[in-house]
């Protein structure tokens, strides 16, 4: 029987084909290329499911797969660069998520773009297909260079799609900003990639020959030859150098996953079409950064400093972004900040050793945030592209499907039991807490994450109440445009998933009852080959977490159950408190802007802590003037010297030519003098005197 693994490359190639088709023939196709994308992503989804089943072990004994499929650049006397496929539980789960959401977004786009008679649709669908291609290839990349390559391509697609409405002023500017800010992160990432190749001679994620395994050996056992050679050339210890490498790669992660301080591009990215926001700027591309950390978790575990920094960045971003989400007036802006905040949770989990929790939250978040964005898209269609929540209100009765699915997503986001977000967020906080009890840095990160739960509950339901409840506050809200099946179907699917996907990993229930229902956990533990041969299973990570990273679990009052219940009660209680506050303030027929009461704080929050301002200042207030100074210097000094030399030649030529007087006698005199001088010179040299 053919193995699914041989078809894994097709998961990415199908959307690539659809990219080419949509770009070249999209203009003449029905639905302008959407169908190509739908078929391609549907194909990808089917193969992804097949792959996932194989990884689960239902279809044979081979449960992980690594194959080099394309030699990129051959080196003689040095390492080769290649592209390859690596499938393990983590990547097959991510393939599933990406292809599912891609498919749903393609379907939704039929309603959002085609039904609205947008122009440039082939370009839209081509970019979207290219995005799916890049993201899927990124997910199954077997080495960090390939990951970087597709990471960048994903950035390109993001640029193209944010700037889709290029005839206006704002979208191209936002697109530029998004690419530039993530490029800044990628600069560090690329140094990291190059450094990893230079240090280990390989960029493989998995197996004994991969760089995490070599790094582990270098720290815990005998140092592999090439590594020690390079370390002595750099003059650093293994631990120190790996920390630097890890932090460099983290630069790319922070940029792409919109973590502090490189988060500023994401809210601006909302200038793109809403389905794009759902797919790229919420569910998948932004996840690339977090996924990358999970992908090379074996490497990060080796350096406790990096782990602590990841956790701190995560916790801080979760809180920081949540505070800004509280005052936003536009629907998509609230969602944008909530996205930043939620990715902060994943980073928090990864940094504090909660690998499963992070992947779990990644999964649930992808589902409920895609849902929320698509729901917002549905609202935006209804509101004729007015996104201001203060012009909405009372949409509940007019668009019930949207309302109920949006509510499901909101409950998940706020973390209300039993919706998906509760289970995953609870696990994140629980992991951070138990590992943080013995580690003050992690505890600080946990505290920030916990505080953000309250704010999340508040801003989420402020958004829900303002949008759907109360009285309509504008004419369009009185009579919203209706949406068709192609909007409702993806919403329905995701709405159900948002309510139920949390059940894949109900750790608290397992701990309380002993039922073995932590499926995701078991999934990531993986098979024996995964842990022994590929070294990317949870069983491989756990000892390193404890022994090398020095992150150990400890419990309040020494009891796991007590800690568990306390943590769950705390996060649920805070979330409910947030929801309750939102209900009190905004679930009234005629809500008012309570944010005014915040005074100066509100100004600060509305300006996003002046993060944009200082980054724009760095670009326009520092770099541009510096460039102008360089230009002046270049034109004045360097070119001045060059032109100066030519002026000196011209000037001296001008003077010297005055010897040519035109008077024959002068020439004769010069000749005579010359002859005399020559004779004297010869005389001296020849020794005549």
């Amino acid at each position, binding site marked *: 029987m053919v193995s699914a693994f041989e078809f894994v490359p097709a998961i990415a190639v199908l959307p690539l084909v659809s990219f080419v088709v949509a770009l070249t023939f999209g203009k003449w196709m029905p639905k302008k290329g959407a169908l190509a994308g739908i078929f391609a992503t549907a194909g990808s989804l089917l193969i992804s499911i097949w792959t996932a089943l194989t990884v689960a072990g239902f279809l044979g004994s081979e449960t992980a797969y690594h194959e080099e499929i394309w030699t990129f650049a051959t080196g003689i006397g040095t390492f080769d660069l290649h592209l390859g496929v690596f499938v393990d539980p983590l990547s097959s789960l991510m393939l599933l998520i990406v292809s599912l959401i891609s498919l749903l977004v393609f379907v939704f786009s039929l309603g959002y773009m085609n039904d609205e008679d947008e122009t440039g649709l082939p370009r839209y669908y081509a970019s979207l297909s290219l995005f799916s291609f890049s993201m899927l290839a990124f997910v199954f990349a077997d080495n960090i260079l390939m990951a970087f390559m597709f990471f960048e391509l994903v950035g390109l697609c993001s640029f193209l799609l944010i700037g889709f409405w290029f005839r206006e002023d704002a979208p191209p500017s936002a697109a530029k900003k998004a690419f530039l800010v993530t490029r800044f992160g990628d600069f560090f990432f690329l140094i990291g990639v190059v450094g990893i190749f230079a240090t280990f001679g390989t960029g493989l994620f998995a197996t004994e020959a991969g760089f995490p395994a070599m790094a582990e050996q270098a720290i815990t056992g005998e140092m592999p030859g090439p590594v020690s050679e390079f370390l002595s050339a750099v003059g650093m210890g293994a631990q120190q150098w790996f920390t630097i490498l890890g932090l460099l790669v983290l630069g790319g992660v922070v940029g792409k996953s919109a973590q502090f301080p490189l988060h500023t591009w994401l809210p601006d990215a909302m200038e793109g079409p809403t389905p794009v926001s759902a797919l790229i700027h919420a569910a998948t591309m932004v996840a690339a950064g977090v996924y990358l950390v999970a992908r090379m978790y074996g490497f990060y575990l080796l350096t406790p400093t990096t782990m602590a920094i990841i956790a701190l960045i995560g916790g801080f971003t979760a809180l920081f972004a949540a505070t800004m989400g509280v005052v936003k007036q536009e629907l998509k802006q609230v969602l944008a900040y909530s996205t930043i905040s939620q990715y902060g949770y994943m980073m928090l989990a990864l940094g504090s050793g909660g690998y499963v929790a992070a992947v779990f939250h990644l999964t649930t978040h992808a589902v409920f945030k895609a849902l929320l964005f698509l729901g917002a898209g549905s609202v935006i269609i209804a509101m004729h592209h007015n996104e201001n929540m203060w012009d909405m209100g009372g949409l509940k009765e007019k668009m019930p499907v949207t309302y109920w699915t949006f509510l499901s997503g909101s409950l998940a986001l706020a973390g209300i039991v039993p919706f998906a977000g509760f289970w995953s967020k609870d696990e994140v906080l629980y992991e951070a807490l138990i590992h943080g009890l013995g580690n003050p840095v992690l505890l600080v990160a946990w505290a920030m994450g916990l505080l953000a739960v309250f704010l999340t509950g508040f801003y989420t339901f402020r958004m829900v109440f303002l949008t759907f409840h109360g009285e309509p506050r504008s004419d369009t809200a009185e009579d919203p445009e209706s949406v068709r099946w192609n909007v409702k179907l993806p919403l329905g699917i995701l709405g159900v998933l948002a309510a139920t996907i949390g059940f894949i990993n109900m750790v608290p229930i397992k701990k309380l009852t002993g039922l073995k229902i932590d499926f995701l956990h078991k999934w990531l533990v993986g098979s024996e080959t995964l842990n022994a041969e590929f070294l990317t299973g949870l069983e491989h990570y756990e000892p390193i977490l404890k022994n090398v990273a020095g992150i150990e679990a400890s419990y309040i009052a020494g009891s796991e159950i007590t800690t568990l219940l306390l943590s769950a009660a705390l996060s649920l209680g805070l979330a409910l408190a947030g929801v309750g506050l939102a209900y009190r303030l905004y679930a009234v027929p005629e809500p008012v802007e309570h944010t005014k009461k915040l005074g100066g704080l509100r100004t600060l929050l509305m300006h996003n802590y002046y993060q944009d301002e200082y980054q724009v200042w760095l670009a326009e207030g520092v770099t541009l003037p510096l460039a102008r100074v360089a230009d002046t210097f270049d034109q004045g000094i360097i070119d001045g010297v060059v032109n100066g030399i030519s002026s000196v030649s011209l000037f001296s030529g001008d003077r010297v*030519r*005055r010897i*040519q*007087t*035109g*008077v*024959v*006698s002068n020439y*004769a*005199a010069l000749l*005579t003098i010359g002859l005399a001088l020559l004779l004297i010179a010869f005389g001296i040299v020849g020794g005549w005197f």
Partner: protein
Amino acid sequence: MVPAEYYLLLSAAMFCIGLFGILTRRNALIFLMSVELMLNAANINLVAFSYQWGNLTGQVFSLFTMALAAAEVAIGIGIILVLYRNFADIDVTKPTTMRW
């Protein structure tokens, strides 16, 4: 036999007279004459050495020089005529248009 030094002295003297004429005089005709003097100074040298070494090459060469001098005078006088036609003078310091 008169030693070669005397001839050389004579030739040097003639050369210097010619040179002096070129450097100090303005009249183009005197210019030509001075040039002629210098050429003949060279001729004396050639003939003198030829006589000293008993080699006829120098004398033959001086014949060539005379022929050349004749040609030169022809052209030189032609130039002087043109000069006179254009500047109504044969002062060589007047025509200074061929400069810079």
